[in-house]
Each structure stands twice: as structure tokens, then as C-alpha cells.
């Protein structure tokens, strides 16, 4: 029996790495995670049949593609509306954001506040993790291996060690995430088109009423 390794696992890994990379640098936001220690916040991405689970602890947030228990809070929305959640500033915007909150709404709001404070360009991050980027980096690594072979084993050892410590954290895999990125793009385009259509219809309705 075979099944490709879950795209949600790969996506969760990328998000987790970025999120905790940021949290490591921002003690104030990190301290807010402590209030959610032990909670499970689920984010269901409509249209992708994908749910991400955020598990804050005292100083970091684990992100998983699958969790069998009951989450404390469930946020449901399209990827676009969930991305926008990070920039919501008012209750009205939240109400109109298209994101549904279920379960413990206080925890949901605390979590939203944390996301809003995390200064990450999510789209740019995800666009970096593609097959081309991997190929380029592997090419660089191969070139540097050849060059330093003549320099001596010690410096090669250090270069490779450092390269892999830094780089491998951000690029666990390209293949699974690439598939997912394509799916996200399709959904986003559809969502944007739908939104534009709704706006046109609203305008039309306003004009004729």
C-alpha cells in the first residue's frame, strides 16, 4: 500500500520553521504563546481539503498536518481569507473576513493576535520553496564541494556543516510543497475571481436599487 507523503506535512513543516524562526527573534510575541500553552488551534483551508493544527507551548508553536484529538478552536476559511486574518484590525473586519470561528473564541482571538504580530511575508516564503530554488541551492552546494576539495577537508567540513544546518531547516522538501503551492494558486485565483464577481454584483445591486 502506498501513499505519497502528505502535502500537509510538508506545508506544516515550512510554516512551522518560518513561524518559530520569527518567534525566536521577538520575545514579546513569544511570551504571548505561553497563554495558549497546551491549546490546539485548527485552521481548515476550504477548497484544499487541508487542515493545519497549531500547538503553542511556552515559547514556540508546533504546526502539524494532522491531529486526532479535538481542537480547542477551529478557524475555517479559504486560504485567501486566512492569509488576510493576519492583517485584520477591527471587529468589523473580522466579522466580514469570511473566516468562521468555532469552539473557544477567546483562544482563537489570542491566536489571531499572535499571527497578526508575526511579521512574515507568507506568500514570499512559500514561493521560495520551489523545485527551482532547490535545484539552484543544490547546484551551489555541488560547485562549492568541487572548489573546496582542493582547499582541504577541514574547511569543506565546516562549509557543508553550516550550509546544511542553516539551509536544510528551511527547505525540507520541494516536491510535496510544489504540488501544494500549485493547488493554493489555483484556489487563490478562483477566490479572487469570485470576490471580483461579488463586488461587481454588489455594485450592480446598489446601482439598480
Amino acid at each position, binding site marked *: 500500500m502506498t501513499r505519497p507523503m502528505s502535502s500537509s506535512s510538508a506545508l*506544516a513543516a515550512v510554516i512551522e520553521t518560518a513561524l518559530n524562526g520569527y518567534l525566536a527573534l521577538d520575545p514579546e510575541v513569544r511570551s504571548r504563546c505561553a497563554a495558549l500553552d497546551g491549546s490546539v488551534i485548527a485552521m481548515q483551508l476550504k477548497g484544499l481539503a487541508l487542515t493545519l493544527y497549531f500547538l503553542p507551548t511556552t515559547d514556540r508553536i508546533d504546526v502539524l498536518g494532522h491531529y486526532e484529538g479535538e481542537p480547542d478552536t477551529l478557524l475555517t476559511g479559504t486560504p485567501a481569507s486566512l492569509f488576510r486574518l493576519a492583517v485584520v484590525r477591527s471587529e468589523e473586519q473580522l466579522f466580514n473576513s469570511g473566516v468562521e470561528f468555532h469552539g473557544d473564541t477567546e483562544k482563537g482571538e489570542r491566536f489571531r493576535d499572535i499571527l497578526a504580530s508575526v511579521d512574515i511575508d507568507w506568500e514570499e516564503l512559500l514561493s521560495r520553496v520551489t523545485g527551482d530554488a532547490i535545484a539552484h541551492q543544490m547546484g551551489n552546494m555541488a560547485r562549492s564541494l568541487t572548489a573546496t576539495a582542493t582547499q582541504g*577537508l577541514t574547511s569543506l567540513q565546516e562549509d557543508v556543516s553550516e550550509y546544511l544546518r542553516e539551509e536544510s531547516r528551511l527547505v*525540507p522538501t520541494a516536491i510535496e510543497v510544489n504540488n501544494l503551492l500549485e493547488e493554493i494558486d489555483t484556489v487563490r485565483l478562483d477566490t479572487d475571481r469570485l470576490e471580483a464577481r461579488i463586488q461587481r454584483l454588489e455594485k450592480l445591486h446598489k446601482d439598480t436599487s
Partner: protein
Amino acid sequence: MSDDTTDFGFQRVPLTEKATRVGAVFDSVVDRYDLMNDVMSLGIHRLWKRFALETSGIRHGQRVLDLAGGTGDLAARLARLVGARGEVVLCDINAGMLKQGRARLIDEGITGNVRYVQSDAQHLPFPENYFDCVTMAFGLRNVTDKTAALESIYRVLKPGSRVLILEFSKPVVPGLKPLYDLYSFRILPVMGKLIAKDENSYRYLAESIRMHPDQLQMLSMLEAAGFERCQYHNLTGGIVALHSGYKL
């Protein structure tokens, strides 16, 4: 073939010697183990372990045994997953690896819900019907008597609970095998020499992968040990497989 020898990579060694030889391999690589895993698998081993964790169904408040848990990377995640009300037992036969694991977990601030036990997987020193889950990532192939280990795991699991075995297996994607062979037998030991300064240990690791049972053999072994509803998932073209089974 003599009855009292077993495989150590591609060599045959007396049964009684295997554990010592494996111990020496891990003593030798302990300092660089995590780094070498990253190099060997291009970082993908983290995703394999993550997938195992997500498949496990482990939740807050549960008690989990992480066997051959070595340097603690899976245990760290398990500790956060079970939370303050839960417990993780990190178990490894190698003292050096266990010390490394404990140091790492303490560094990450994980102290309240983890216990460290040095033990042989073939003779687990825990009560029966004790754990909500047992995980074993990249450890089973190093065990001399895998059947004994599986039976021991069965004993300590609570009824209704699961074992998860993550281990190298046989690639199933056509054309992958020759590349994989080249990678394991030519490139890996060289990386081992360069980075861990230990070519022989990484040669052993590459060879031990070849000697490990394939997907279906592993499934049969689980069933023979008493597990039910056994299944497996191939990861990365079958280079790694995640096997699971229930004690019902």
C-alpha cells in the same frame, strides 16, 4: 549458514557480538549523528519523522515510549504533543546517545514530562499494558532479534494502542534502486569520512539498511508478534516505510 551468526551490515558476526559492534558504531557517531542524518537524507528525515508523528494519533495527556530514541529529536516533539499531563519515555540502549538526547531536551526547555531509560528493546523493563503508543524511528534495523523486540513492544502497549515503526525499506519506484545504491555505497561513506570522520560506521549504516526486511516482510513480522490491522505507508518512493499495528 550457521545458526548462531547474524548480519552486521554485509558481514556475518556471532549473535552475541552484534550488540557490541552496533554499540561501537553509535558511540563513534553520537557527536555528529543529527548532522549526518541531515546530510544523508538532505533534511528529509525530519519530514519522515513528522509524518510518523502526525499518523500516530498521539494526543495531550498520553504516555508514549520512544524506542531507540537516541538524540531525542522525535521525543522533543512527542513531549510537546502529550503536554504537561502526558509522559514520554525516551529509551535507548546506547548511553552516549541517551545523554545527548537528555542534554538536547533540557536545552530546549523540556524537562517535566520526559523520563530517560537505558534499555535493550528486546527486553523492555516496563509493566505490561502501559503505553498509549510506542514509536521506533530508524532503530529496529540495529536490533539483533527484531522479533523479540516486537513481542516486547506488544507486551508494554495498552490494548487498543498502536506501534509505529519508521525504518528504511526497499525502494518501489522503478529506476530509483540503482541511484539509491550508488548513493548509499559510494557517496554516504565518503560523507561519513568527511563530516563525521568515520567512514566505516556510515558504511555499516548503509549496509544495515540493505539487510533490513522489506515492506511485506516487516508486515509479516508485526503480525507474527501479535499485532493486528497492520499496514504500511511508503515514503519517498519506498526508501523509508512507516509500519503500524494495533494491540487489540
